[in-house]
């Protein structure tokens, strides 16, 4: 399992300010912490970055790779910023990853970049229209992205399919569809297609104390489905791995001795699989 450390996002206030002031300290501190906690790659999310995208991405890639011997996941919709980042990326520590292409024609050029710079790319299974309704629609879009990747000359082992994790608080049915899609994507090629998710989006909008519970359980269930990579907080993943034996026991229908943990895990699995309706206080019911 490849963990792509997610903490360097423009959405976080501390990171945004560091980006604005070109203050390397917080960026390098977070990148180092994610590396030490087990990340194999660092996500650099600079947002749409319409004004200074090229400079910002180059600064981010350099700042991260100064202290961490890992490749970077270049996360922006700005084509030029991606290309600028790829040019100075230190490939000695692995191929960079572009986040992302999709079935939206505006995102097709990202595939050209991936081929030109011999790197990896995430294919987000959404089109220009609405969100995919279920695992089948996600797979249909995945097939189109794979076909296009081959046309452009991208080896399929450099493509990570992303089923698009949605918020459980508003789109509960999708959690199970994402797990199903991860299974289905793998069957679409031999050797199996690689898969990736933006894990924490599942708990976006949920109360603060509920978020890690949902993230960890969802991660274990995705891992069991064969997930290859996750954009996630490596510290949270380490905790999820400690919980995995107990979550697996409950998934297998066994009762675990710690009653509180048993209740938490059962309720969370039921919410993820849609057996009970989600509410912010579901753990208290």
């Amino acid at each position, binding site marked *: 399992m490849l963990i792509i450390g997610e903490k360097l996002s423009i959405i976080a206030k501390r990171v945004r300010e560091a980006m604005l002031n070109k203050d390397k300290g917080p960026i390098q501190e977070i990148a180092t912490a994610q590396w030490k906690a087990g990340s194999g790659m660092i996500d650099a999310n600079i947002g749409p970055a319409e004004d200074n995208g090229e400079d910002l991405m180059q600064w981010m890639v350099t700042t991260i790779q100064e202290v961490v011997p890992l490749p970077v996941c270049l996360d922006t919709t700005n084509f030029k910023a991606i290309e600028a980042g790829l040019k100075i990326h230190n490939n000695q520590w692995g191929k960079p990853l572009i986040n992302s292409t999709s079935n939206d024609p505006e995102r097709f050029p990202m595939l050209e970049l991936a081929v030109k710079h011999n790197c990896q790319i995430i294919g987000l299974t959404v089109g220009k229209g609405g969100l995919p309704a279920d695992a089948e629609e996600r797979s249909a879009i995945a097939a189109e992205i794979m076909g296009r990747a081959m046309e452009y000359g991208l080896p399929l082992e450099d493509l990570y399919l992303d089923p698009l994790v949605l918020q459980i*608080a508003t789109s509960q049915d999708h959690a199970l569809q994402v797990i199903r899609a991860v299974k289905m994507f793998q069957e679409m090629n031999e050797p199996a297609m690689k898969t990736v998710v933006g894990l924490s989006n599942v708990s976006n909008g949920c109360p603060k104390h509920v978020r890690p519970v949902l993230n960890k359980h969802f991660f274990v269930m995705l891992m069991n489905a064969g997930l290859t990579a996750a954009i996630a907080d490596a510290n949270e993943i380490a905790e999820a791995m400690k919980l995995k034996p107990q979550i697996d026991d409950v998934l297998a229908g066994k009762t675990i001795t710690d009653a509180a943990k048993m209740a938490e895990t059962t309720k969370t699995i039921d919410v993820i699989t849609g057996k009970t*309706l*989600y*509410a*912010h*206080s579901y753990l*208290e*019911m």
Partner: protein
Amino acid sequence: MALAAPTETYPGKVFEVTIGTAKTAVFGGENVLPFHKFDGSVPNKPVIAYEIQDVAPEDWPDAVREVYGDAASDPVKWALFCQNELKAQAIALRLTGTHPDRQDRSAEDAAKTVKDVLDKIDVPLIILGSNHVEKDAAVLVAAANAASGRNCIIGKAQEANYKTIAAAAMAQNHKLVAMSELDINLSKQLGILITQMGFDKEKLITDPMCSALGYGIEYTYSVMERIRLAALAQNDAVMQPPMLADIGMYVWKVKESQAAEADLPKWGALKERGIAWEVVTAGALLLAGAELLIMRHPDAVSAVQKFVDEL
């Protein structure tokens, strides 16, 4: 060989709620989807309450106002008209005049209106605020106290004001409407929060928020349908209270129930149009699972009653 019709049974059941004292109304109690009597037990028919207000209904269209005429100038006369002339099963008194942007009537004035109405009627009473979250918190507490011992429905408790309103309803042993805004997960959350206060879930009525035909009814329909499926198929106790469809106030403000024939001759007679709009909205939400309706036009109520009796 005789055909054995398959039946669909569920582990869950909707709570049965009784309101009123001298005369009562009972709704809910079924363990099957709406009107699926052939699958299980449907002990009660949906109940329709007539809507009245604490102040004259100046914002109601003429098509409804003319039915009530002078009676609507006074809430007690209006309530008696509904009870005696229209044979109402229940009455819903909306304290519209307490809204700060309307007459801004005080909680004490509202409580007096409630008491005056209750002194004269014996059918069950539903007491509703003006949908102003801060003002409702004060008004509904006073109203709940004024209605002590009469087993009313108090509403609507929302996320921002449920604590005081639920506490008052609990203290006076009333039923309570919990309203959330067209979001099934928030509807469940509000139910959890209210029951965590110690309020009995079997005294709750869920209002997922109504909308009129052509103005988002598909959202209300879908949320109601999913609430009912969670209650029955998932046996989710928080989702098992009966549901309210507060129809009249949504129907009688849309263009279709108000636009003059002279302006839109192709739309047909104004009088029939508004009634038809209320009937179709009510019919759809009954099929989605509503057990308690609040309506305005007697002709619409009769048509819906006929629909309920025939199904």
